């Protein structure tokens, strides 16, 4: 076997050392940095993109949080405005109710007073008519003049009796 020809060992080993050192230097100095550079650039680019995406996401989340806070604030404000408006409306309604009730009461009192006055007047007129009627009737019956005072007293007594009787 040529593999065991000892005289061939030295030249193979010498050229192996030379070629392997050459390969090592070429790999370490030239080829591997190139490939590493390509891979790192790509990984760096991917990492950058991921970073950017994360940043955008956090920005979006901030905006959403701000929007929700604003929305909640607006809702609260609207709620309090509605409540206040309700209170104001209730107060105004009560006030008007009071005024109307007062006006109505005053009108009713005035009307009652007018009715009383009218009633009193009517009664007084009615008595006068009764007195005159009674005086005329008595003069016709007896043919003599009857004193006005006597008639007045008789009518009053009759009204008194009547009123007491009807009671």
């Amino acid at each position, binding site marked *: 076997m040529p593999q065991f020809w000892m005289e061939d060992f030295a030249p193979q080993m010498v050229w*192996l050392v030379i070629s392997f050192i050459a390969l090592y230097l070429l790999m370490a100095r030239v080829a591997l940095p190139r490939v*590493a550079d390509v891979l790192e650039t790509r990984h760096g680019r991917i990492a950058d993109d991921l970073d950017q995406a994360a940043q955008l996401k956090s920005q979006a989340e901030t905006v959403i949080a701000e929007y929700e806070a604003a929305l909640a604030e607006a809702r609260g404000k609207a709620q309090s405005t509605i409540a206040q408006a309700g209170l104001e409306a209730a107060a105004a309604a009560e006030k008007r109710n009071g005024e109307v009730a007062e006006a109505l009461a005053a009108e009713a009192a005035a009307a009652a007073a007018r009715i009383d006055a009218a009633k009193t007047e009517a009664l007084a007129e009615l008595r006068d008519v009764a007195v005159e009627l009674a005086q005329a009737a008595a003069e016709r019956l007896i043919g003599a003049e009857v004193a006005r005072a006597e008639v007045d007293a008789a009518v009053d007594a009759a009204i008194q009796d009547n009123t007491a009787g009807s009671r």
Partner: protein
Amino acid sequence: MTVDRHIEHSSPMHQFVIGRLSDWQLGGLDISFSKAAAFMFGAVIVATLFLVLTTSRRAMVPGRWQSVAELWYEFIADMIKETIGSEGRKYFPFVFSLFSFIVMCNLLGMLPYSYTVTSHIAVTIMLALSVFLLTTFIGITRHGMHFLSFFVPKGVPLAMLFLVVPIEVLSYFMRPISHSVRLFANMTAGHTMLKVFGSFVVQMGVFGVLPFALIVALTGLEVAIAVLQAYVFTILTCLYLNDAIHLEH
């Protein structure tokens, strides 16, 4: 060097003759250039050109060839990461060169009329010895005398240590032998077999189609073995480096 060697051209062993192309001496050292040396440089040139040319566009989205270069790089990087860890980064160029050299020599040897550098024990023992010396050097410089504890497995009864320690020492020093013989034997056996079946094709006339069909299948197998053996040599290198760095069994 004038040892008269003769080997028939038809012999399956003829392909392993290193094929001297010059007769150079340097202070008594035979540095003759040969087919073997030419194929070593061929491996160096092919590996370097492949990696440089495929990454010349530095594409963000890699093309087919650039993907091969990146895969090749990450294959070794991941192997080191998994077997050694982050301390292995320092040895990445060495391990990468070792793998590239062996896989290129093996694959160039698969070309018809070519020569397989790694079918020689002289080559594989040099590679294995460089790994052995490197790992031993790393072990001693990192751990000093504590490195010797590598030969004393934990949890072994004292009485057994008299038996276990010599075995551990022996197996440690056998590493470069098994490391180199595995590659050399695989390459030699594969190429010898191909040549033997090749001569059958010629000798059997019409019936030569049978060994020819077998050769086609065996060539596919040999390509797989060429890559697999380079992988095995490299992963063993990583494991030995891990032993030296972490002193673990």
